[in-house]
């Protein structure tokens, strides 16, 4: 072997030696840093679009910055105290929380049975699936405008016209505080259920069929199968869906705004609407930043709590 190798070497050697070999240290450092080069773009995006603006917001929250002057004055915690003296803030916080919890619960309650139904074989299944998925396609702002006509409190509103033919007086859907809140949540649930049902459907299709076949052989009924097999196996999907719903619900702005502009009164005002109005329309960037910082902390805590609960459930059922 040694001879053969030695015999072959003279012919190959000049070419191999001609290749400039990377120095060991350089090669080692290239390999070592390769993963970091891959994540660098997203790190740059995160730093430029998230971290720096967040740091700026934190800084502005301690100043009287109004978006115009380049050197705002430091005013300590004044903005943070001012937030709590604003009665509309409490209303915005209450409705945002109510909206986030209500939509999370209702969408989950409707989406799982819908996914189970859409998972069965029946004629026109693809078409029915696309019908349920459709509300997730158009912009929420467009959906809001369409529902404004449907829920118009006037007699000419779509729903009021229909019930008018039945001799029922027009219902003030978007003019009454409670009805407006309920209307916003109904539209949100309608718009999101199909999308989340598709999420559950994807998980359902990945579930092992042998477990279900074994359960059937053991004589499990439909309810028992759902309660003791499907639901526990769907726990990871429920965690993902609820995380998306909860974060989306806490940050919601477009749907309530296009439907009611936050009214009547303060009934459907959201925290994001308040932040935007303070920061942009009212040029009170300092206060809007303070509100954003508190909002970020509150959302972070709620999400952490939700994740902790989800993790425990997943551990229990996995």
């Amino acid at each position, binding site marked *: 072997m040694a001879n053969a190798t030695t015999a072959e070497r003279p012919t190959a050697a*000049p*070419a*191999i030696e*001609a*290749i*400039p070999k990377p120095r060991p240290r350089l090669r080692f450092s290239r390999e070592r840093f390769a993963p970091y080069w891959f994540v660098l773009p997203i790190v740059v995006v995160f730093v430029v679009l998230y971290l720096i603006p967040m740091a700026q917001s934190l800084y502005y929250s301690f100043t009287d910055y*109004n*978006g*115009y*002057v*380049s050197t705002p004055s430091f005013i300590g915690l004044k903005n943070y105290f*001012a937030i709590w*003296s*604003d*009665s*509309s803030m409490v209303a915005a916080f209450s409705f945002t929380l109510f909206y986030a919890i209500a939509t999370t619960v209702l969408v989950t309650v409707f989406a799982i049975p819908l996914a189970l139904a859409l998972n069965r074989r029946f004629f026109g299944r693809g078409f029915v699936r696309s019908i349920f998925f459709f509300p997730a396609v158009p912009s929420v702002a467009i959906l809001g405008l369409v529902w404004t006509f449907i829920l*118009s*409190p*006037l007699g*000419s509103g779509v729903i009021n016209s229909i019930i008018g033919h039945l001799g029922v007086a*027009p219902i*003030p*859907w*978007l*003019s*009454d*505080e409670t009805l*407006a809140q309920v209307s916003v949540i109904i539209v949100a649930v309608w718009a999101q259920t199909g999308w989340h049902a598709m999420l559950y459907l994807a998980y359902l299709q990945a579930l092992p069929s042998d477990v279900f076949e074994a359960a059937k052989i053991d004589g499990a009924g439909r309810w028992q199968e759902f309660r003791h097999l499907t639901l526990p196996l769907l726990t990871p999907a429920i965690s993902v869906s609820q995380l998306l719903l909860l974060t989306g619900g806490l940050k919601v702005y477009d749907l309530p705004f296009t439907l*009611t*502009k*936050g*009214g*009547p*009164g*303060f009934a459907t*005002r959201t925290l994001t609407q308040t932040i935007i*109005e*303070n920061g*942009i*329309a*009212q*040029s*009170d960037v300092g206060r809007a930043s303070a509100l954003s910082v508190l909002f970020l902390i509150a959302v972070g805590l709620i999400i952490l709590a939700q994740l902790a609960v989800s993790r425990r459930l997943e551990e229990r059922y996995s």
Partner: protein
Amino acid sequence: MTLTQPSARRRRLARTIVALSAIAATAVALTGCSSAGSGSSGSKTVTFLSWDNAQTMQPVFAEFEKENPGYIVKPSYAPPVPQYIQKLQTLLGSGTAPDVFIITAENKVQIMQGGFAKDLSKEPWIGNLAQAAKATYTKDGKVYGAATASWGGGILVNKDLLAKVGYTSAPTNWDDFLALCKKLKDAGITPFYEGGDGVPVTLAALLGLQNESLGGSMDQQIWSGKTTFATTWTPAVKTWDTLFSQGLEPRTVAGLTGDQVTQQFEQGKVAMIGTGSWALGSIQQAAPNLKLQYLAVPGTDGKTYWAGAVSPGYAINAKAKDSAAAEKFVRFLQSAKGVEIYQKQTGSITTTKDFTPKLDPSLTDMAAAVRAGRFYLPAVSWPDHSDVMGTEATALLQQNIAGKTTPEQVAKGLDAKLQSVK
């Protein structure tokens, strides 16, 4: 394998070329920016951030350039109101604002206090502006905006529907107005609607009467602590609230927008609406057969008043690249020719002294009052925090319309809000 070395060299060369090209391209771009910036200095070029769209403003620019050979307007556009405010705010904050921009109720405090606009009070043409227009954009005797128009708001009536209940002349006091509404209601005609998405026109006019009785300084007195919303607003809100307490206007309007109300009017489903002069064009387009008339809002003591506000003004950037060109442009915008073209494009009620606009007959009474400065709108009259106070007022009034709060609570709510934002 011997080809490897030149290949690596080629790759290195290619990389170097790409890098140099990128640097060169960046440098060219930066140079381009730089030359564009410096080139406009003294170049008779006016940069202008317009509130109106290109279709409206293009004839105005064309006439300016025709009258002033060599001068060029470089416009950019942003629609009112939040988008415009935000864009201008960013431009001013970054030192890249145009030579001429719009000053309006929503940004006037920041612009006047921040020294972003040039004082126009010494301009030879300043006397051509209406007194109300000058006052709106004046601080400490300095005028920061040249507003050439105003809008009015009142009760827009469908004359045919009113004729069915024997209407012959405009009501001159609030009780007559309520009586007219009652007649219409008894005849099966919906009497009156007003959008709940802002301070209603009728209430603004009633508050205007209150402001007039205090010498036109109601809001200054509230802000300085000499009086309160509770004292000044409660009587007007109580008067206005009778529309709901007597069932002459449905409480459902709390959730209606001005556009929804206008649509009902266009379809002949309501006899009267509270709206501004700006709605006339679209109503006439949608319902050309309607016989229309704007009426003043009658008060409880026989006086009438109008809602309304001075339109946005033209401001010259304090750091304009070509200040002389900017001044020439604003001078043209307020001139008889400039106003004539703008009026033709927009149909607005212009208020400059050397030009009288030709308006739709339904606006005759309103235009005379507006040109005389007899109009009022809280959000424009408030010295500062107009947007936050306006949002609060809208929400409180919606609660009042819905019957959840009393007029006293509306006024007290505004006092509380003012204290929280001061």
